[in-house]
């Protein structure tokens, strides 16, 4: 059994089923992200694990102990909130030591732990400050230290980076991951930001409409999305419908072009399969080793710094591709005709809806 076991969880608010038969096993020390759009049920799952919401059905077990009926203050779980939720009347040190004081830790022991935690988050000299005297990033670091100080069994992070600006977000997510690995604490991270989820997690759970659409390592989630939703939510893709010509050989026809996808297909001969193509898998011009060539007309060019995103109309389908910026090569002009080279094995076969 997994260290944290979420077993057939259901949660309804009135007639609305927010979480539907959600099961997940999290190993000790693992960092799991719940990724999904607003209203997909990811925060509800987190709040049920924390004990703030009672499940309509199912069970939560931590290290073999059923905690479903326990109140939040009996679960020994740490949590970091989106809005920091630092106690305004307490100093940084008092905030960090709050959980220890509530647990009845000795004064010297608590002081040592607070010092250790402040060192861990890189703010050893700010113990005497009040939350209003800190920046957003510093406040969230303190919130992390406060959550970790009582040595919780599980750490829950509820969109902790959403309220911060882009640069701080990137640096803080690296810090959080580093601290998590250093302490080896089992962590569930809720986010709607795919970049955060992919860069920080051991595994990602992509949620939609209260169910887990796909659970897997970031590499698998991105490169082998199981459904159209996952392919669309995680990263950008161009969707194609192809007709199966030989399921065992993985052969299909796409707009009259024969391709062998490099994997056998579950669909029957003559059936339609959904294919997805990532922008980085398509190349401008003819490229050796990429046997499929699509001809189209450029309809949009977005210069994004290191990357240029080009959209070309290929037989009525808008194909998106990314190309690296080169200072000596300006982006192709809108309206020009281009060849787009693709390797058939780079097409992702999606499950039928």
């Amino acid at each position: 059994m997994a260290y944290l076991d979420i077993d057939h969880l259901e949660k309804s608010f009135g007639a609305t089923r927010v979480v539907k038969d959600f099961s997940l096993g999290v190993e000790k020390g693992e960092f799991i992200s719940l990724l999904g759009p607003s209203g997909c049920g990811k925060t509800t799952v987190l709040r049920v694990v924390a004990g703030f919401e009672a499940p309509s059905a199912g069970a939560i077990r931590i290290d073999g102990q059923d905690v479903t009926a326990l109140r939040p203050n009996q679960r020994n779980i740490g949590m970091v909130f989106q809005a920091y939720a630092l106690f305004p009347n307490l100093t940084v040190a008092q905030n960090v030591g709050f959980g220890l004081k509530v647990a009845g830790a000795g004064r010297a022991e608590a002081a040592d732990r607070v010092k250790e935690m402040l060192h861990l988050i890189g703010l050893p000299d700010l113990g005497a400050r009040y939350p209003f005297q800190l920046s957003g990033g510093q406040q969230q670091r303190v919130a992390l230290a406060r959550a970790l100080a009582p040595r919780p069994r599980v750490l829950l992070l509820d969109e902790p980076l959403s309220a911060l600006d882009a640069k701080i977000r990137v640096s803080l997510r690296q810090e959080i991951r580093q601290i998590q690995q250093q302490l080896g604490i089992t962590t569930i991270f809720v986010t709607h930001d795919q970049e955060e989820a992919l860069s920080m997690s051991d595994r990602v759970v992509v949620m939609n409409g209260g169910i887990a659409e796909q659970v897997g390592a970031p590499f698998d989630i991105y490169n082998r999305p199981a459904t159209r939703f996952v392919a669309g939510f995680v990263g950008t893709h161009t969707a194609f419908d192809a007709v199966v010509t030989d399921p065992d050989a993985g052969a299909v026809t796409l707009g009259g072009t024969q391709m062998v996808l490099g994997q056998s297909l579950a669909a029957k001969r003559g059936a339609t399969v959904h294919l997805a193509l990532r922008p980085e898998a398509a190349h401008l011009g003819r490229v050796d080793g990429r046997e499929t060539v699509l001809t189209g007309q450029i309809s949009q060019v977005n210069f994004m710094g290191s990357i240029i995103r080009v959209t070309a109309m290929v037989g009525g389908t808008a194909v998106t591709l990314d190309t690296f910026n080169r200072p000596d090569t300006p982006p192709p002009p809108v309206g020009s005709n281009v060849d787009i080279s693709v390797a058939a094995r780079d097409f992702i076969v999606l499950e039928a809806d």
Partner: protein
Amino acid sequence: MTDSSLPAGPSPTPSVAKAAQTMARPRRTVGWALSWVVFILGMIYFALPLIGMIEFSLRKRRDAYSFDAYTSVIGDPQFQATFSYSVVMSVVTIFLGMALVLPAALWVRIRLPGMRPVIEFITLLPLVIPVIVIAFGYLRMFNTSSLLPMTGSITGTNILLAFGYATLALPYMYRAIDNGLRTLDVQALTEAAQILGAGWFTIIFRIMLPNVFTALLSGAFLTFSIVLGEYVFAALLDRPAFGPYMIWAGSNQAYEPAALAVIAFTITWGCMGLIQLAGRLFPHTRAKR
């Protein structure tokens, strides 16, 4: 390229700008003078009656200003007895009000946000229903021949009076506390404390109370002022409170009521000063201002 070769832009020349500035200056001076006139008129409107009352309270001695009226009021055993009684009653009322309102306001914010309009309406009722109606209702409900004969003993009547005062102060106490809670993310703070192992006692006394302390003080001082001046409840329940004493003094003496009014003003202003001071004493409340 030299500056002279630049095309003439839409910006005014220095001399035009200077002329515009010179025209704007008298307009600003007139506005400034007008605001001072309004301010001084306002001050006169509020301060003159007060100055007149203070001056009158000092004229008990025929040929000179003196504090005779104040000495007479403060030395009056009845003043001392009624004032002390009302102070004790206000302290009891303040604690009673806080004990009722703080958990209720917190609960409404966390668990029953949809009930807020209903609770606000209930707390406003004492402002709409005349005090005499509430007082008669109490007397009818708790008289000696009722199921709960609270008016049958002095302690029972005092308790009844404290509850009556708490009802009168409810609109002010609720609003003060609710305004204090509005400045906090109550839900997140409560959940943060709970997940760290805290129970409701710790949440209320270690987190919520210190953060709404200034708001609580405002509610407390408003309650104090209401209790000190309240007449109907105390008179109908026949308790020796300060309100009935002020009415009695007003109808039987000349200079003492003015002195009493000045004392009451001083107490109110003192309370306001204390609220300000309390705000400065707590470092975390400094950030909110």
